[in-house]
């Protein structure tokens, strides 16, 4: 998959890809996120954990400028988005892929048109777009569903179409909102494998929300083997060193750090949450 026309990361090569500083947001007087600060460096995968309703999806929408914070600053690729208007955001979003919690596929469009949405917006010639769609659908192992409509797909298939739609332009940042939410363990594993594949093949920076702690640990302890085309445990109990964790509870960060730091954490709330 070709890189986007303008490699945005060259703009501020040393800046973290995602940089939240003292971000707060509330709805109708109710605080949802309070004073959130964290960074995601290039090539890292930040896994966001936390109980339901603690503001994970809100945080992800902030990172894409779909919501704007009440206070604090958010920088994406070194550019401050809290100061941008919607039109400037569109330029930046070309470099960001997002997988929504409920997939958010366009019901009125076929799988092919959903996946090719961005390419069509960029007026890519039809045959070229088709080739890319086939490639992206092969990546998520759904090539057979190309002519179907979203209403004809299962939840797991929709999630995979949604991943294909997010990665087709080879974005520099991918936001996965609960890609395994509500799926059976086998389908979840297929999706985790896709995410590991995307991480290890393209080294894309990503934010990933999940409710399933086992998925988070699978991500941290597995790598993609290009020869077999499957993921496998990192030998000798190794850990992927680009994985970072962020745990939210009631709108605040309760943990931020690497996999080792997380397993060694003494915090009683975290120990109970991980148990």
């Amino acid at each position, binding site marked *: 998959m070709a890189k986007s026309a303008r490699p945005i990361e060259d703009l501020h090569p040393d800046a973290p890809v995602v940089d939240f500083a003292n971000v707060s947001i509330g709805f109708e007087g109710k605080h949802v996120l309070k004073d959130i600060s964290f960074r995601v460096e290039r090539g890292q995968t930040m896994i966001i954990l936390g109980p339901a309703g603690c503001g994970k999806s809100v945080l992800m*929408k902030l990172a*894409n400028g*779909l919501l704007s914070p009440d206070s604090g600053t958010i920088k994406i690729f070194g550019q401050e988005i809290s100061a941008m208007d*919607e*039109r400037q*955001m*569109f330029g930046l*979003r*070309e470099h*960001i892929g*997002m997988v*929504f*919690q*409920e997939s*958010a*596929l*366009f*019901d009125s469009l076929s799988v092919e048109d959903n996946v090719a*949405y*961005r390419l069509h*917006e960029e007026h890519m010639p039809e045959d070229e777009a088709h080739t890319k769609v086939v490639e992206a659908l092969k990546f998520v192992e759904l090539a057979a569903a190309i002519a179907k409509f979203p209403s004809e797909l299962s939840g797991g298939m929709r999630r995979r179409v949604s991943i294909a*739609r997010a990665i087709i332009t080879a974005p520099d940042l991918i936001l996965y909102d609960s890609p395994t939410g509500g799926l059976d363990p086998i389908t979840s594993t297929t999706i985790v494998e896709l995410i590991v594949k995307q991480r290890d093949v393209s080294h894309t920076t990503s934010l990933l929300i999940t409710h399933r702690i086992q998925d988070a640990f699978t991500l941290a302890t597995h790598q993609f083997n290009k020869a077999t085309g499957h993921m496998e445990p990192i030998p000798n109990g190794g850990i992927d060193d680009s994985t970072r964790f962020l745990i939210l509870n009631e709108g605040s960060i309760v943990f931020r750090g690497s996999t080792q730091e997380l397993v060694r954490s003494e915090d009683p709330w975290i120990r109970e949450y991980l148990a």
Partner: protein
Amino acid sequence: MPFLNIESFAKKQVAGVQDYSLLAGRAVANLFTAPRYWSEIWSQMDSIGVGSMPIVILTGFFTGCVLALQSATALKEFGAVNKTGGLVALSMVKELGPVLTGLMVSGRNASGMASELGSMKVTEQIDAMRALGTDPIRKLVAPRLFATVFMLFFLTIISDAVGIAGGALVSTTLIGLPWSSYIADSYDKLLYGDVVAGMTKPLFSGFIIATVGCYFGLKTTGGTQGVGKATTEAVVVSSVFIIVVDFLVTRLMIGIFGS
């Protein structure tokens, strides 16, 4: 509690009017700049224009019929049955054609837009569209606005025409007026100003239908229940607006043409 709520209620209304004006303004502005979504415009023209044709023809026709029947009965008292044609034509072109067509299309399309955009909103498809780099106002609202204004204009002409034809049919068959005198009287009574007044109204109604329908759709919250509520509100508000604006335009036109 009610006292506390008056302030927040007023604030909400003001914010609503502000949001609505912003949406309408941006939709209009988007029509004058590229990119334009022509395929979206065509499909909306088809769904609004061609799709509304049957109800517009039926209501227009029967309104013309009933108008002829009522006016002939009333005019008989003054021995002026031969004035039926003019009365039907004037009422249809100046008032009933534009208003009824507006209300019918509002019931059909303001609700359709609110429920379609509302479902897209609650299933995060609107957010997904923004995340994929498309402005939903440009892609969804502007084409609906253009298509509604454009098509409502022609639907109104059709409604006027079939209304006059319906009146003619009733006058010749039930009332026994000669066809030629009906048509001649209609033609005599209709002045340039009446036609302009009647043709101006659908431009406003079309604008109201599309912007109100899309506004309520895009501000939908609260799942499928919210979609139902948005749909109802869109139809109620756009219908009331159409009638109020009809009054204002009529007043304005009387000021301009003096009749």
